[in-house]
């Protein structure tokens, strides 16, 4: 295997006696697009919350580029190069589309708090550069014509793309996508799949994708991990997983 970007070892998380994630291990090589799938409530989002430091693991380790990140604060993990989107889209609704992206560019400028109070030429220069960068990014996701609208007023599919753009603004090495196709119709889903494939090459990304629907990941993922009740029940390439009887049963078992 090539350079492993993310290495999760024997990860467990319990909430008041409920085992949300149980002995979960995963290695993600650089440049790959892996996916975790499983029925609703299988613990997929919990794994993301553990990787991004929103929850602290009960047991196990998470390493990013060979550095332990479990237990670190969320913003530090983000600074190291992991960003994510949320299942229930979490944009800054009182910001314009442009400002949502510009906010995520805060690491691209380094003017001080003092220069925040009194504008200096340096601040103005950096702000202009950030605005240009953000606009370019919006162009890339086809949202540049709506840059000044409130993020809240965008249609659902656009909000998804904006949230991904916001994550991309941080120039992550590893992008975590939490059910990006949730709530989309087949047509929108198809467009999203193409979009993810596009940004993957353009930004040279390693991607971990959580999905509930198997169809979405089939065309995208190099490798799939299937979980149910917080435990890995199968792993393999899309073709292998699709024909795995255990997987089929897990999905049929919850009425899919």
């Amino acid at each position: 295997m090539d350079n492993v970007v993310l290495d999760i070892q024997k990860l467990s998380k319990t909430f008041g006696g409920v085992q949300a994630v149980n002995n979960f291990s995963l290695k993600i090589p650089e440049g790959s697009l892996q996916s975790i799938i499983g029925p609703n409530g299988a613990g997929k989002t919990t794994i993301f919350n553990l990787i991004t430091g929103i929850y602290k693991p009960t047991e196990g380790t998470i390493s990013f580029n060979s550095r332990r990140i479990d237990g670190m604060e969320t913003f530090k993990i983000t600074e190291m190069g992991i960003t994510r989107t949320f299942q229930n889209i979490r944009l800054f609704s009182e910001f314009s589309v442009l400002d949502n992206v510009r906010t995520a560019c805060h690491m691209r400028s380094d003017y001080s708090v003092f220069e925040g109070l009194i504008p200096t030429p340096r601040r103005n220069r950096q702000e202009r550069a950030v605005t240009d960068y953000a606009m370019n990014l919006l162009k890339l996701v086809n949202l540049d014509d709506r840059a000044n609208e409130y993020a809240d007023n965008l249609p659902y599919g656009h909000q998804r793309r904006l949230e991904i753009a916001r994550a991309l603004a941080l120039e992550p090495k590893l992008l975590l996508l939490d059910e990006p196709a949730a709530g989309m119709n087949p047509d929108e889903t198809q467009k999203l799949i193409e979009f993810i494939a596009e940004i993957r090459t353009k930004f040279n990304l390693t991607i971990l994708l959580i999905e509930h629907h198997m169809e979405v990941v089939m065309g995208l993922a190099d490798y799939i991990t299937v979980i149910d009740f917080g435990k890995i029940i199968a792993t393999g390439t899309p073709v292998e997983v699709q024909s795995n009887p255990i997987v089929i049963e897990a999905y049929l078992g919850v009425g899919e």
Partner: protein
Amino acid sequence: MILQQIINGLSIGAVYALLAVGYSLVYSVLNFSNFAHGEVLMLGSYIGFFSLTQLGVPFVVAIVLSVVGTGVIAIVLERIGYRPLRLRSAPLLYFMISAMGLSIFLQNLTIVTIGPNFRTYPDIISTAPITIGDLYIGRLDLMIFGITLLSLLLLTWFIYGTKMGSGIRAASYNMRVASLMGINPDLVVAIVFLLAGATAGVGGMLFGMKYTVYPWMGTLTIKAFIAAVVGGLGSLPGAVIGAFLLGITETFAAAYVSSAFRDLFSFALMILIIVIRPGGLMGVVSQEKA
């Protein structure tokens, strides 16, 4: 001497408990601190006072009038100040601000209409204390303790022993799940405010008897809020434990350090607890679902 302080601490703690439960009840269902709770207490105290002095009714009737009055007032306040926010799922910050607005409004309306003066309750019970050895127990304190305990028992029975009570507990666990179970959220909220209001009514009368009645007496409930925080906002047993802990801390601080710095100790206790255990003694540290 120490025993005497413990008795004093329990006596004040009991009233804090009654009021802390009101904060915790509302918090458990709506997840915000109803800062107008103190003003409901103040209104209850006035209702009791005027019932006794103007209507000349017996004490028990005065308590009933006060409880009914504050129960209704609390429901009305919820309708005016919080329900519109609930319906559009406003940020919790707005609930807090609205509560603060209600509190300012009621307090100052009382000052303008009834007047800013302190009023003394008529004596309900002999002021001569009961002496056991060298312990002094005020008859009024004993009575207050008894009424508080009775109210808390009634409340406990309602929450844990009735169908409506289990509805409230379900709602406090998860409002959305509760409404899926066929529990009408408006009804649950109304009942919660009725209960919180009623306890504030009893508390108002007890405070009025022990001290006096005045328009900004609602700020006394800051202590009850501290108790609720110490015990863990949203937890009823926590509120009671927190209240007694606070009552005893205060009386000891006043007796052995300085009565002037009593309140400093209350705040210090609160800060200490939430730094060590952010969820309070009995609370659960909620981990937000992202």
